[in-house]
């Protein structure tokens, strides 16, 4: 086992323990959990929401939620960081999509415009996010359009119509890139025995 993998296992075990203690209302454990994971989660929220006030609010709401629901985390079902990331991302996406409805497409353009300024670019993130062997292989095997569309959707929270505008492609094309890309990722990852 590589040093990295061993460190990650150790970190996971530590996070699980902190979550278990948080479920028992141990405030010190909760603070450690926050210190260990909030920079990562804040980074994720900032990229999707692109606005620090909104990202701060989501991070705060998410951790209040974790304090109240730490007992519902089931270790056998997912990694602790995956569980925490899902809580933060779901709040970000709910917020972003609600905003879409309120403001219709007026700032869709801005939204798509700001993406080009962001470093690292979503596609680079997708490829470097896939460091662990099989995931990387699966991501690299996707077509260029699929990769680009999935990266923008995942890291920047772009909806189908925003993707179409940003990539200057018909909506139907973008939708099928996403759908086929996800199907291929699934087949590849499940085949590698990684996903579950």
């Amino acid at each position: 086992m590589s040093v990295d993998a061993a460190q990650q296992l150790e970190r996971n075990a530590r996070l699980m323990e902190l979550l278990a203690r948080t479920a028992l209302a141990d405030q010190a454990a909760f603070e450690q959990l926050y210190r260990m994971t909030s920079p990562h989660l804040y980074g994720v929220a900032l990229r999707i929401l692109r606005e620090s006030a909104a990202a701060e609010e989501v991070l705060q709401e998410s951790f209040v939620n974790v304090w109240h629901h730490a007992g519902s985390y089931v270790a056998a079902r997912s990694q602790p960081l995956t569980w925490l990331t899902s809580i933060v991302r779901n709040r970000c996406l709910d917020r972003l999509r609600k905003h879409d409805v309120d403001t219709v497409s007026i700032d869709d353009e801005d939204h798509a415009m700001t993406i080009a300024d962001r470093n690292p670019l979503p596609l680079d993130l997708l490829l470097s996010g896939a460091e662990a062997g099989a995931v990387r292989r699966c991501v690299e095997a996707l077509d260029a359009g699929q990769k680009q569309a999935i990266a923008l959707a995942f890291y920047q929270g772009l909806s189908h119509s925003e993707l179409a505008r940003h990539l200057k492609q018909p909506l139907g094309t973008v939708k099928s890139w996403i759908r086929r890309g996800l199907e291929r990722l699934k087949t590849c990852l499940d085949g590698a025995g990684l996903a579950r």
Partner: protein
Amino acid sequence: MNYRRPERADALAAQYVLGTMSARARARFTRLARADPALAAAIRAWEDRLLPLADSVPPVEPPEKIWTGILARIDRTAAAAGSQRRTAWAAVSLWRGLALTGFATAIALALVLLSPPLERPAATLVVVLAGQDAKPALVASAERNGRLLTIKAVAPLSPGADRSLQLWALPAAGNPRPLGLVPASGVVQIALPVDAGTALQNVPALAVSLEPRGGSPTGLPTGPVLYSGPVERLY
């Protein structure tokens, strides 16, 4: 949209986790998944597939005011007893806010269990452990200079065949300490290594968690906290 076809459900779960669904579709899908375990499992599987991709996002140190804001909010909810809560901490605070009648019933039950009888001035420890619904489920009691902790269920327990209920001391500082297993019958006497007064010194509360059969393999709680309650010192 037809959510019943498994491959359709799986494709929608993928879009949900990737984040491309519209607000309305997201809201509807969230609602459906709450009632449909297969849909919830499909979402989880996609989270396991896709969310590790978030690891490459550069971390950003959040401003300290977020943590102070979180602390302020959890302290406030912990102090506001009386409404529905879901956590162990909340159960404790709720317990404190229980109507006096419920409290009195629980204490009376606890006192009935005590030995020796009340006319002798024995200093005792009593813990009423309540669930999320704030209803007392278990009473733990001990004489302060005795070494037996008596547990009695005041409501039916159903941990399930492959699970055990484990009782923990929650010290003011440090890790929870396992005290023993509580059988499904809910009645047990746990032998303490030292007298109860010493064993539960600086232990403000006890809790019961759901564990694999035979108890937590790690020595720390791994499952959800089902019941908890503050340690009361009676004289």
